């Protein structure tokens, strides 16, 4: 026993993981509280989760401009992490607010739903804050496993089961790619720390042409592009988004996508900056493919959830343009765009949740006939979100697209920006079609529309404020996004 060493935690710096720590504590506390309350009560869970998110938001705020590193450089709580954390918190908060009434309506008033959303958010925060491949990978797993369960949350519905299983199988498959990529890069450089990998690759120029490095880079990208839902790795998106409960779809389309972008961007910038010409060329093709496939297929959809799924693929393509540009405006444009997308997309999904008839979802285009006149508030809100998704001023979507395409033009990718703008034009068709149905078609029958629950209305109002704030005065947030990137 004499050589038993003193095992001590090294470089503990709780400030580096403080926000996610607070969030997980709230999640686990909520799990405990649920045990002592009768089944079927969920109202308390909504408010405790929201309080948890607000408290976490406070700790994110205190971390701004005060970078903390800890656990042997496994995590960094810098501005970049803080900016993305705000995105995740908004995504989780808006989702939680719109969920309660929907879950009760669909017959699943299960309070474990809320801790799972909080855990997925914590996982997303670890992904954004990870400066070690290991942390990023574990964050991805935490987030994904919570999402697999959430996608299959309506256990009695075949569609939800299918969504959960499909997401699980394809997610596990993509995780395999990611892990293989990490293993190859580790094999080349002998480190999993992002900065060390970058320095090593930069110092050993011959390694840049090593097939193992390139294979590692490609596999790693594949893993993340899968989570981002970029073409040609988008096949799972429509089915999973359609089958999952609508609030979960809203969360999946904003939070995890932003998390994957956060980790992807950090890895590309920290590790592979010396391979920039190679990966920008690769991502150029993928960005164009993603935008075109997303927009063109969305035109044919008549189910709104499926349409928004394809639109979310297209939006991943726009954000990838910022990554191709690989300059300050492009990178901060991605951050800005992800925040804007969170507001506009979750807002649109919140309207979909409230558009349901009692007992069943109302998600077809025909079902939206006359919707705008019957439900004026929801109609106007949906119109604003759709305008924002199209990218028309004065909404957040316009400012976001403007920054991203400006970055592409500045980096010399004129054609990429042109293709992006053309794609936005294509997207006008299917977004406007929803509005045509909402305002210019008569309702065929009188539905028993669901009443407007206060929490969901708060969620829509916050999203509206976000869309207009980012659209009318984008400068402030853009300045913060510029401070957030490396």
């Amino acid at each position, binding site marked *: 026993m004499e050589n038993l060493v003193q095992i001590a935690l090294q470089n503990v710096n709780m400030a580096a993981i403080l926000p996610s720590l607070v969030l997980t504590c709230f999640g686990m506390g909520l799990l405990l509280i649920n045990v002592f309350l009768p089944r079927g009560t969920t109202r308390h869970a909504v408010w405790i989760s929201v309080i948890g998110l607000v408290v976490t938001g406070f700790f994110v705020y205190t971390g701004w401009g005060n970078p903390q590193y800890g656990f042997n450089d496994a995590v960094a709580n810098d501005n970049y992490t803080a900016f993305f954390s705000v995105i995740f918190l908004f995504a989780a908060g808006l989702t939680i607010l719109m969920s309660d009434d929907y879950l009760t309506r669909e017959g699943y008033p299960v309070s474990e739903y809320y801790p*799972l959303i909080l855990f997925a958010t914590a996982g997303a925060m670890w992904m954004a804050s990870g400066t070690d491949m290991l942390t990023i990978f574990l964050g991805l797993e935490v987030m994904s496993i919570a999402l697999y369960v959430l996608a299959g949350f309506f256990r*009695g519905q075949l569609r939800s089961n299918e969504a959960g299983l499909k997401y699980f199988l394809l997610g596990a498959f993509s995780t395999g790619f990611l892990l293989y990529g990490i293993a190859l890069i580790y094999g080349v450089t002998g480190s999993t720390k992002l900065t060390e990998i970058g320095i090593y690759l930069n110092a050993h120029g011959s390694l840049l042409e090593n097939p193992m490095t390139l294979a590692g880079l490609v596999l790693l990208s594949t893993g993340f592009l899968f989570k981002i839902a970029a073409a040609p790795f988008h096949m799972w998106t429509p089915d999973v988004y359609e089958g999952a409960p609508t609030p979960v779809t809203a969360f999946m389309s904003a939070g995890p996508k932003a998390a994957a972008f956060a980790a992807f961007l950090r890895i590309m910038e920290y590790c592979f900056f010396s391979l920039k010409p190679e990966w920008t060329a690769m991502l150029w093709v993928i960005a164009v493919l993603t935008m075109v496939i997303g927009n063109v297929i969305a035109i044919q959809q008549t189910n709104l959830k499926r349409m928004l799924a394809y639109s979310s693929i297209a939006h991943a393509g726009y954000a990838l343009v910022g990554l191709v540009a690989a300059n300050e405006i492009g990178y901060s444009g991605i951050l800005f765009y992800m925040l804007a997308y969170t507001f506009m997309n979750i807002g649109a999904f919140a309207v979909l949740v409230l558009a349901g008839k009692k007992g069943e979802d109302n998600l077809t285009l025909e079902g939206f006939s006359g919707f705008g006149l019957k439900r004026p508030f929801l109609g106007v809100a949906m119109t604003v979100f759709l305008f924002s998704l199209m990218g028309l001023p004065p909404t957040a979507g316009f400012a976001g697209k403007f920054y991203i395409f400006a970055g592409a033009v500045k980096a010399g990718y004129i054609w990429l920006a042109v293709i992006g703008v053309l794609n936005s034009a294509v997207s006008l068709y299917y977004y406007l079609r929803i509005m045509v149905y909402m305002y210019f078609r008569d309702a065929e029958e009188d539905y028993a529309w669901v009443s407007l629950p206060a929490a969901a209305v708060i969620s829509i109002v916050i999203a509206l404020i976000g869309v207009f704030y980012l659209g009318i005065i984008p400068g402030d947030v853009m300045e913060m996004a510029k401070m957030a990137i490396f």
Partner: protein
Amino acid sequence: MSALLFYILGFIMLAATLLCITRRNPVHAVIYLVASFFALAIMFYLLGAPLVAAFEVIVYAGAIMVLFLFIIMMLGLAPQETPEGPGWKRWGPLVLLSSSLMICTLMLIFQDPAASKEIGAFYLAPQAVGEALFGRYALAVEVISFQLLFATIGAYMLGKPLSKGDQ
């Protein structure tokens, strides 16, 4: 000799995995996968990581494969009809692979201890693994333990019997 063993084990692994994914009978497939895991375990030992080798046998070949077999039997996936053809045709490859595995293991046991350093440039003691896990990678261990907690909750959520309210 380590190099020779490495190639033999590599061949065994490839052959066993190929046979695993081409078998019709899931039970046979699982048995081949076990053979592949054993070969991998010995390879880890050759590379100087005895703890990983032990885990490979205990966790993968032991626990996980037993779970696989258990689920195959519980779901009744194994074909019911009696197999045709002579037995050596079905079990020949497995006997060949596992006996060569055993020969490899025996060679390792009876070889000159000094020769074992041939490939493995270093030797990773279990103690070093423990120190790394609870020192450098403490955060990762905590995250994994947390993940196991809510993965259990998720599995419970999805797996518990449907109540009357559910369709």
